[in-house]
């Protein structure tokens, strides 16, 4: 199971702070495309981390079942 965590405005869209998906042989780029379609995230800007490390979104890295992916948008309030 790949765990996905959502923050800020992204979590408002997904209506959950995290979820687990069982996909095999899925790249980061494919996962992000699926999520953007599922939750209509195209208007939002966010960075992506795998296992607490920010990575390039256009990555063909094949996600491992122990990986934790995080979608992290910038905040603006102050």
């Amino acid at each position, binding site marked *: 199971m790949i765990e996905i965590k959502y*923050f*800020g*405005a992204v979590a408002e869209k997904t209506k959950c702070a995290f979820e687990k998906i069982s996909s095999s042989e899925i790249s980061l780029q494919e996962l992000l495309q699926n999520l953007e379609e599922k939750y209509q995230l195209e*208007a939002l*800007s966010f*960075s992506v*981390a795998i296992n*607490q*490390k*920010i990575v390039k979104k256009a990555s063909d890295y094949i996600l491992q079942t122990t990986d934790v992916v*995080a979608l*992290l*948008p*910038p*905040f*603006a*309030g*102050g």
Partner: protein
Amino acid sequence: MNIFERYNRQIILPEIGEAGQQKLSKSKVLVIGAGGLGAAVLPYLAAAGVGEIGIADDDVIEISNLHRQVIYKNSAVGKYKVEEAKLMISALNPSIQINVISEKLSGKNAISLFEKYDIIVDATDNIEIKYLINDACIITSKPMVYGSIFRFQGQVSVFNYQNGPTYRCLFPDENTQSLSCEDAGVIGISVGIIGMLQANEVIKMILEKGEVLSGKILVYNILNNEQQKFDFDKNSGFLVSLNAFNTKYNIAENQVEEVSVEEILNEINNEEVLFLDVRNHDELPKINFKNGIQIPLMNLENETQKLNQDQTIYIFCQSGIRSKMAVELLLKKNFKNVKSIYGGALAVKKLLQEKIII
């Protein structure tokens, strides 16, 4: 005053000592934004004895600010945040120097301002200005202590620390939107916690103790008390040069024309011109020109119908800062001939007394 007594409880910490206290008193920190984050950062830096603190903000206090901007009094609604923040923190610690900058931060003033400080604290509430602060920090080689809020979550990081990763390395997409506190809602405690974490990063950098949040972003959720750190690398594709900075931010704007008091002396009884006082009604000294009118800056935008767009208008405030903002505002509203009086009411009063005109 014995500084050992004032700062005793932190000086006795082995990580600080008298040497650390000296570092604090020699340091200069600029806090941009005197809103919710600034209201948490400012008193803690001042109380700890940071020797020189700049406060930059061009807003006035609104009643809806007070639930989170806890350094302001109810009686200060309508007054400038920088002035009230200065009053509050100088009462807390009179031994430090406090500079107020009531101009809006822009490409024109950011570099010269940042050069006067060691550390820049981003306590602002919109994304556009964060890119400006980031880029100006790169040009001037200053660390940027970033903090921001989305509802019950907050982010903290230190960018450009010792040439480390920047805001652009973390969030490269500049054309992004995120809701401000006004739009998204916010509770005072979340800005308080994040502001306090920013103050903590400032103190650690000055003392050179602990680990600075460089190349890391801390995300704090106050609803479940989860804290997470994410690492990120420097992306050298975002190096900013001074030329690139100037091209990006120094778009020619309406130039504010200033005149000296001496230059307008002959106009004092000229009924063709108007003297516009943009101070609040309770500010002293009172200056009553025959051909004068008073409209506080905060009301000016809604009361421009009281003015004639084709008339020559000389604008003054207390010191000459708000009057420049008033000129900009009126130029945008198609006024033809508006000028700011250099030195403001204080300079006017002085000259009038010398010439014994009133």
